[in-house]
């Protein structure tokens, strides 16, 4: 669903649009967006990359987390226009191929680190960054790393187990 490019809206406000160029998962996109469209909505409804999920729209749940220039960010708290000229990685860009999973994704699968899967994309992108920053974390550090990602299904244990397994495997 894309906003119309121009038009009189509430209180005589104009719905302004801009052209943006964003690289998402290695592919360049040029689109016209309403300036108030959030990055989350742009990814989901303009680019049809629906793997990034929207859970709260006020920056608490973390389901919408993507990587912007490699850094995790809550895409509900960014405007799409802010991604102009930047590089975004979403969950769809994590697995190396259609037939293989990233070791973190495989570990989540092996350790029952997901149930309904709604928080999972945000967990994965957050953890990808975390493991880059901190390749050998303690359990406490893992929990702190995902303290900004809410999960209502797993109680987090499966996720923590998966991360510790990945780091143990790397160390082996």
């Amino acid at each position, binding site marked *: 669903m894309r906003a119309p490019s121009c038009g009189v809206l509430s209180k005589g406000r104009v719905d302004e649009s801009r052209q943006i160029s964003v690289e998402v998962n290695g592919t360049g996109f040029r689109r016209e967006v309403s300036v108030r469209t959030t990055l989350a909505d742009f990814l989901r409804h303009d680019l049809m990359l629906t793997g990034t999920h929207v859970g709260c729209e006020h920056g608490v749940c973390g389901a919408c987390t993507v990587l912007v220039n490699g850094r995790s960010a809550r895409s509900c708290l960014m405007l799409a226009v802010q991604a102009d000229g930047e590089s975004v990685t979403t969950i769809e860009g994590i697995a190396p191929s259609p037939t293989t999973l990233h070791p973190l994704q495989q570990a989540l699968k092996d350790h029952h680190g997901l149930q*309904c899967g709604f928080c999972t994309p945000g967990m994965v992108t957050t953890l990808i960054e975390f493991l880059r920053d901190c390749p050998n974390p303690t359990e406490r550090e893992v929990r702190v790393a*995902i303290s900004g990602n809410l*999960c209502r299904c797993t109680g987090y244990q499966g*996720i923590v187990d998966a991360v510790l397994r990945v780091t143990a495997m790397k160390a082996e």
Partner: protein
Amino acid sequence: MSLIGSSVPRLEDEPLLRGKGRFVDDLHMPGMLEAAFVRSPHAHALVRGVRKDAALALRGVHAVLLRDDLLPHLPNEFIVVALPSKDYKQYLNRPALVGDEAVYVGQPVAMVVAENRYIAEDAAALVEVDWEALPAAADCSAALSPGAPTAHRASPHNLLAEFPIGYGDVDAAFASAAHVFKESFWQHRGGSHSIECRGTVAASDPYDERLTVWTSTQMPHAALRVLCDMLGRDEDSVRVVTPDVGGGFGPKLVFYAEDVCVAVAAIILGRPVKWIEDRLEHFVATTQERDQHWDVEVAVDGDARLLAIRGNLIHDHGAYTARGVNLPYNSAEQVAIGYELPAYRMNVQIALTNKVPVTPVRGAGHPQGVFVMERLLDRIARELDLDRAEVRRRNLVPATKMPYRTGVKNRGGMPVVLDTGDYVRCQQDALERAGWAGFGERQKAARKEGRYIGIGLANFVKGTGRGPFETVTVRVGPSGRILVYTGAAAMGQSTKTMLAQIVADQLGGDMANVTVIAGDTGTVPTGMGGSNSRQAVLAGTSAHSAALKVREKVIRIAAHLLEAGAADLDIEGRSVHVKGVKRMAVDLGKVASAVAGTAGYRLPGGVAPGLEAMESVVIDPMTYANGTAVAEVEVDIDTGGVRIVKMVFVHDCGRILHPQVVDGQLIGGVAHGIGNALFEWMRYDDQAQPLAGTLADYLLVTATEMPPVELAHHESPTPLNPLGIKGVGECGVIPIAPAVLSAVEDALSPFGARISRTPMMPSDIVALVQAFG
């Protein structure tokens, strides 16, 4: 090698991990419009007028619908869903949109449909409603006082229903008791807060006017029935499809005003319409649990054996009946389940308030009943100077008495019979793992250092697998692929994996050859959906039964085709072969084709056509899972902060189908329970205005608040279903609040602390410490 009991890889995982799930907001259709609702900002108010002009004038707005706009399409404008009970004094059903009286903050008044959600919200802000505020019923106890403002203008009072639950001669027991203790409890549980909020998409086919509704629901068949009833349509002209659901936990089993409004809008506008609930709406427009006030007395003999419990429960129902009286019924019933209680009487009063309706959230009223009993047992232990675990051991229903007929009946009128379980052994195991016996010494040592540690325990026995049935169809097609269709609903609890496991166990053992389609009313004519920790039991049993029937037929046909004896055949993957002679085989697909029919030719072996079985196995009695939680805490008396040092949870859900899934359900439930004990409070002011409206106010447990959880399993299979399984989905929640708060009370015993409410916030804990000095 049986798949049952094995932690097989989940079918659900791969697409979800890749971001290829299909949740309701992921649906995009040509011409789809989006809706936003105008909601009442008042808890109780009359609508004197509505003006839509400014909203309609906005570019991109397609419609602003009020009640009058919907009525021509709604032969029945009310959502009538109440579970049967003879005790209703008032029938209050939710309308699709407010007429002239709004009765809770968040109640939908108007629906805006626009090009996208941004414009829809702009327009919603421009709809002008003239409100006349009325007095609100905010507190459920106060609402029952004479002269209290009524939640509905036309109601004579706020008592929706009142009934006793009990048995035995309670008064005689109290009269002759060695000891009688009184307690009052306030218990609060909050909302679901699944990370995915609600959402519905509806599209009406322009050619055959068939309406398809995709909705994030736990009960697609129930949704279908309500839709058909309200729209005045036959079931064949409406189809409800369940996409991936990002958590349900109870409130998504309810059918909502927004759902029918979306359907009507799709019909009126002739275009697909989508409405996705945002988090702000979830706080005010999705059902939740809320407050219960209990005044109880317990009578015991000189040996701390329970003689009777009696009391009164006031339950906050909210403004309408969105499910029934089941929640407080469960709470009151629960007190009498698990321990031997010779006599019991709980009077239940259900109060209307001007708040969003109350319906079950994971646990469904059972945690509250367990809290009452467990707190009473702690009280008894303290008064009689006995170990808290010993008091429980003396009163738990012993394994030798199984099956044990309690004195209570469930809401369907069936007696509650505890089928299997060894509660005492479960408790003993938990106590040993938690180091209960040696804790006193550790506590003393900690106190010398100025640290306050405590330990608490709680037991529970919970009915699972609420019947009467779930529908499962197992079909093998000419491709050789096994298709499973079910009315069961998946919301993260691994329903598809569970069913595939059970079916594959009988039909070739290859889960990759099984496709499960859940929650599509177009594929199974009946179904009940997810609630009451029921799907493994009911859907699992039907799946098992259907798979067995299909297996029997496959073997019979293959025996005919291979000219072999049925007893000599095995199914491995897609191959039906003679045991030990793999090349003497026929493919499952070939077997299916053989009974698909060829014009003019007889079917092989005299069998009926098709390779399919549909089962809806009826199991009326519930099967009772049990467990014991032991929590160790450290309390910071300066800040009131509570750290749960360790949680031990020993659990029995009968035969375990999938160990990892069971563990995941339990730990997930423990997180909800910790929320109920220490964090989750859906607060309102005295005008029934919600004070918690964001996830920064309403605190969900994160990874850093979870303690290390030691899980252990006992398996007491049930005779009530062929697989011997019991439900597990809600069990993790149930004993946590009393175990944690008993531990906090234990930690603060130097201050004479008494905890009679849940949740306890740090400031409440500090108040306990300060009250002592």
